[in-house]
């Protein structure tokens, strides 16, 4: 069975995760899956998602992982909830973060581990004036 991370990238990743200013909790939300596109074969999306998340959490004590069955507010499965310091700030990954998109999950974790946002000061000022709710969905593919 192939490993989730390449052996040559693990040390750097451990270093980055260990250096995070706050811990990050990962929740794998499992439930009924939509039928994927033809070609997916017998790929077990939920099992793969658990494997990826557990492998990421195993790299550093700053990252924890747990599995929940159909948590409130989640309607697509599998999903990964990224919780900075255990706080749900609405960061989600719906689907299995493998291939190219593994970097998106790792990026989400590293960003969530920062104690201050990494946007420019101009962007932060603009967001500080925001007084309505925005749900941003980004459709991605793993290849």
């Amino acid at each position, binding site marked *: 069975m192939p490993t989730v991370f390449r052996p040559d990238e693990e040390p750097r990743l451990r270093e980055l995760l260990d250096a995070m200013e706050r811990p990050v909790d990962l929740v794998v939300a499992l439930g009924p899956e939509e039928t994927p596109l033809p070609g997916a074969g017998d790929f077990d999306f939920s099992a793969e998602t658990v494997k990826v998340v557990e492998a990421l959490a195993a790299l550093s004590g700053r990252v924890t992982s747990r599995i929940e069955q159909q948590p409130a507010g989640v309607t697509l499965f599998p999903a990964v909830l990224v919780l900075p310091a255990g706080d749900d700030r609405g960061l989600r990954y719906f689907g299995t973060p493998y291939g190219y998109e593994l970097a998106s999950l790792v*990026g989400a974790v590293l960003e969530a581990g920062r104690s201050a946002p990494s*946007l420019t000061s101009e962007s932060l000022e603009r967001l500080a004036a925001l007084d309505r709710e925005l*749900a*941003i969905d980004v459709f991605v*593919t793993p290849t």
Partner: protein
Amino acid sequence: MLLAYKTALASPHVTAAAIEAGEFPRLADEMNVWAVPSIAVNGVPQWEGAVRERVFLDRVLAPSFA
């Protein structure tokens, strides 16, 4: 994708989700996803392709989402 996550972390009013289009073809179809990344705000398809931070915020903060 990272910009969306950064934006969510910077504002309590923003949430950000990556959605794997191949695993959720029905939703991707509803959102007219033909290429990735494809961005929707508050359930309305907006644009395709990566953009710089300033442009990203210009678009997601557009008054049409008021």
